[in-house]
């Protein structure tokens, strides 16, 4: 495989295969006759599994000693506007792609039993969603990124709107409007940024690697950062832009929730790290106190509100607000510890929250309720379920030895170098996280069996075990041996940190350059 050149390896189509295999599968599923329900399920699972195997090839061929983008594919798309089909992965996006390709087959496998109506359409949307998400993680052309970013919304909108619960229409529209409004502003910002690049005398391009070097005034940076940050902050979601999330989760079918929490939220944090922060380093520096404040508010607020939720899914949804607050804290520590911790925490959250939604979905299938009060004492009738639930709960509260701890520790360690105050407040999340998770766990799993219906519950079925075992295994592996992940991320993260430091220095220089001119103007 001599094609695995680190940079500019032309003629390599592996990345395209990873992006488009699900889409091919999606249309194949759609073309199947309506009666072929089992066929649709198997085809969808097969295509998602192939995608996962292909993505493992990315990891195998990835060179961990460089910050450059790898598996680069560069073709003109709309040459007149400088828009290219430009894909590449680095140590940041590699694992997010893997997370996506890892979770999607599990979700599809889980959905075999969960989805009863319009089965093949469901899998069509699920696969299309996968293409959208992977594409958004690997697109290096801002226009292409935007296309994938928007493509992604459509299937999720339908998954919530068609297979959702009682208030699915409200939830799906709320989801769409929230995210669409914010991302339109981002589109304007992208266009302005490209324009600024052109005004500086460069040819038109949407290539983010070139746009990193656009010289912008602090004022311009501020506005553009705000537009990007808004789009991403909604997606994360950051407090106070989070209220679409609990509604979307509660109404979404289990598979939708897993993908939404497991992967889509990370597109927000990924967007900060790939675009908003390195494109506008001076504005990032200026906004850091503000973002840190919102991040720690999110950590504490999410944990508090999660605690008093009567509905399991809402509890997990609000816990995501808290966990993603940690990720944002790590990113805006702007040092390798914080950012690597943040990326790690994105993966952790994908695994543990994904698993929590799967577990809630499994119990919902049996009892058709998600209210904590309807359970209690589940250890007795379904001990295997309870044991897995416990492990995932411990992962979620960051028990050392499991994955969550590595992320949280590195985030807090990094953040301590940026803001001690923010770190102190954020560390209360360690306590508050244990409070809401263990209280929930106690009410669901411990105590006497309070409801007659729960005495005869069926323990995990083979298919459910098949879904959970890979997630549980990763939770343990990533807690015990994080090194292979961290060392692959490191060069790219250091590259981003260096770029931001350089950019901030340049921002200061630009300001200094303009200051005399401004003074002259004042005179």
């Amino acid at each position, binding site marked *: 495989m001599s094609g695995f050149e680190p940079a500019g390896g032309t003629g390599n189509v592996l990345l395209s295969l990873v992006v488009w295999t699900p889409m091919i599968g999606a249309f194949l599923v759609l073309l199947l006759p309506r009666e072929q329900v089992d066929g649709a399920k198997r085809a969808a699972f097969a295509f998602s599994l192939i995608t996962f195997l292909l993505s493992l090839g990315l990891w195998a061929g990835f060179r961990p000693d460089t910050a450059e983008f790898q598996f680069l594919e560069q073709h003109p*798309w709309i040459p007149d506007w400088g828009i290219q089909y430009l894909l590449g992965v680095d140590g940041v996006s590699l694992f997010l792609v893997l997370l996506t390709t890892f979770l999607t087959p599990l979700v599809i496998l889980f959905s075999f039993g969960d989805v009863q109506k319009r089965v093949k359409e469901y899998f069509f949307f699920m696969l299309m969603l996968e293409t959208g998400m992977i594409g958004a993680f690997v697109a290096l052309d801002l226009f292409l990124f935007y296309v994938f970013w928007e493509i992604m919304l459509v299937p999720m909108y*339908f998954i919530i709107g068609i297979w959702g619960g009682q208030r699915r229409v409200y939830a799906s529209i709320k989801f769409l409007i929230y995210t669409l409004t914010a991302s339109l502003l981002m589109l304007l910002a992208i266009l302005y940024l490209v324009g600024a690049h052109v005004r500086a005398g460069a040819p038109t391009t949407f290539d983010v690697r070139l746009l990193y070097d656009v010289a912008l005034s602090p004022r311009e940076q501020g506005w553009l950062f705000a537009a990007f940050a808004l789009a991403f902050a909604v997606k994360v979601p950051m407090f106070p832009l989070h209220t*679409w999330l609990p509604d979307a989760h509660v109404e979404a079918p289990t598979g939708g929730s897993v993908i939404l929490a497991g992967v889509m939220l990370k597109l927000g944090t990924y967007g900060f790290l790939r675009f908003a922060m390195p494109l506008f380093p001076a504005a990032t520096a200026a906004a850091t106190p503000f973002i840190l404040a919102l991040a720690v508010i999110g950590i504490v607020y999410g944990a508090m509100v999660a605690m008093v939720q009567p509905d399991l899914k809402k509890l997990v949804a609000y816990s995501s607000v808290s966990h993603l607050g940690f990720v944002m804290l790590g990113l805006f520590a702007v040092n390798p510890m914080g950012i690597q911790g943040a990326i790690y925490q994105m993966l952790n959250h994908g695994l543990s929250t994904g698993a929590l939604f799967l577990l809630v979905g499994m119990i919902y299938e049996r009892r058709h309720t998600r209210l904590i009060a309807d359970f209690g*004492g589940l250890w007795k009738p379904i001990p295997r379920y309870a044991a897995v639930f416990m492990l995932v709960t411990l992962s979620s509260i960051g028990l*050392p*030895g499991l994955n969550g701890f590595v992320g949280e520790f590195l985030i*807090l360690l990094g953040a301590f170098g940026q803001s001690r105050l923010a770190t102190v407040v954020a560390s209360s999340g360690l306590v508050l996280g244990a409070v809401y998770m263990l209280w929930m766990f106690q009410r669901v*799993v411990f105590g*006497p069996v309070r409801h007659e219906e729960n005495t005869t519950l069926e323990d995990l079925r083979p298919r459910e075990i098949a879904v959970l075992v890979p997630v549980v295994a990763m939770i343990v592996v990533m807690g015990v041996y994080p090194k292979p992940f961290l060392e692959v991320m490191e060069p790219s993260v250091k590259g981003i940190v260096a770029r931001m430091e350089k950019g901030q220095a340049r921002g200061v220089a630009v300001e200094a350059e303009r200051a005399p001119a401004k003074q002259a103007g004042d005179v």
Partner: protein
Amino acid sequence: MHGAHATTEAVILHSQALWLIPFLPLVGFLIAACAVNAPRLVKVTSPLAVLAAFAVALSSVATLLGAPEGARVSQTAYTWMAAGSFHADVAFRLDALSAVMALFVTGVGLLIHVYSIGYMGHDESCARFFAYLNLFMFAMLLLVLGDNLLVLFVGWEGVGLCSYLLIGFWYENDDNAAAGKKAFIVNRIGDMAFVLGLFLLAWSLAPAAGGALDLDFAHIEAHAASLNPGTATVIALLLLVGATGKSAQIPLYVWLPDAMAGPTPVSALIHAATMVTAGIYMIARLNVVFALSPAAMQVVAVLGAMTALFAATIALVQTDIKKVLAYSTVSQLGFMVLALGVGAFATAVFHVMTHAFFKALLFLGAGSVIHGMSGEQDVRKMGGLRTKMPVTFWTFLIGTLAIAGAPGLAGFFSKDEILYHTWAAGHPWLWLVATITATLTAFYMFRLVFLTFFGELKADHDVAHHVHESPPVMTIPLVILAVLSIVGGWVGLPEHWLWGNRFGHFLAPVTGHPHLAEGGMLGEGALMLIATTLAIAGAGLAYVFYLRLPGLPMVLSWRLKGAYDLLLNKYWIDEFYDAVIVAPYVRLSTCLWKVADQELIDGFVNGLAGAVGANGDLWRHAQSGNVQHYALAFLGGAVAVLAYYVIG
């Protein structure tokens, strides 16, 4: 006060076997977890796993003893985390301090595993019990053998998890589950401070270490001198808060008495002998940092003395045999913290060890009593068990004599060493508090002995009929622990007696030599005499109260009703925390959800959506529910857009 460390290059012996000490119990856990339906197998494999760990620990310690003074055995398994300038290995060290800890943890742990075969053998979840117990051993051994603060922290939180699981072992009872959760959360509060202490420590050492963020003990020792006193004080206090969680000191002790909801062998192993001493171990391990801050040391000493006295007063009136022992544990941990605070780090560890012997003995003895009394824990319903459970009685009595400080027994030497160091370090008031506490200790422990084993049995007929001595699998560990409670202190005699303080010298390379203002036999001898006399007085008072004039306590409790209620209700501290922290937190959270989230933010969003246009109808029409239409429209649109760009 604190002596210089041996500054010579330490000899490091590389070992390939150290990891086995924690790993073997982990294997035991995995076997038990997989064979959860085969309790007969687990009853063999779990104690065997601990026995194997004990054997490896013994041989490793033998290696250490054969090496020059100040040597340590070390093993780096692999790099755990590396990010930016931060680096942490999974690495183990066996030096004098961890040798002592590892030996008594595996040794006492083994005895308690054996005892549990008898005590828990008939429980339907016996295999689950042994699984948790093995997992605990794994975590505790990581804690004491870890070569950096991060591995220590894995063990630290790991033992907390096992404690949570074992307190709530009989999970069908809501109270047990709640007690387990309380233990975990209160410990997490301490852990939060502990982690912040780690961060401050790592970042403060970085400038002197070329920017490296590192939590290796060797790294900390090498660069601690670069800390300024203010920073050292903050670090030490944060770590101290962590220790108050794990080692049940004021203000975070509240979880330990509730933890008695767990099976009694758990109370003996985790909530008396081993886990709760983790905070003491951690401070002794980081003595270089603490020694930099006299202010923090002062706080440590005062906190320890206060906790010792406070808990002892509560123990005076409790009627549940395990609750008395629980508060006694809090009190004894206070003694250890006091020793740390006066700079007598090795003495604190000495008391950790002797306490492990006699407190494990007392708890297992209490378990034997409860076993024989068909589950009864109220001492007011016991009595006269002396003749019916002779082995339990005699061993329990030895444990009581040891904790009360009877001359020659284990507790005598370690406790008197604490009192002596407190006095010699120039803290007469703290010495007084500790001496009074020691007197109270003798009183409440003999109260327990008299109520349980003497007088008339007050149980109902059924229970009384069934009272029996426990089987040998339970009594043999009692006998072994009783022997250790007698001879366990002989390794640390006062400096000028016979072979002197071997224990202190053994630990000196790690903990340093405390330099005392006034030494000599006379001072120590006089203090010993005072303490012993007072302890005898305490025991004598208990004899008068509970055997000679059994009506007297009742009368006193009426006369001094206010004080009695205060103690009986444990100073209403739990109620205070509930009212001041828990309830407002729940109310505020509910308010945030109902008001901030639903009314304010969502109200704003929905209002905005409404203002933008009553387009809800439009959307609803568009949402015909026919996915074929959507998909077709979506595909058509996508194709059209693509075609336009590609062709145009």
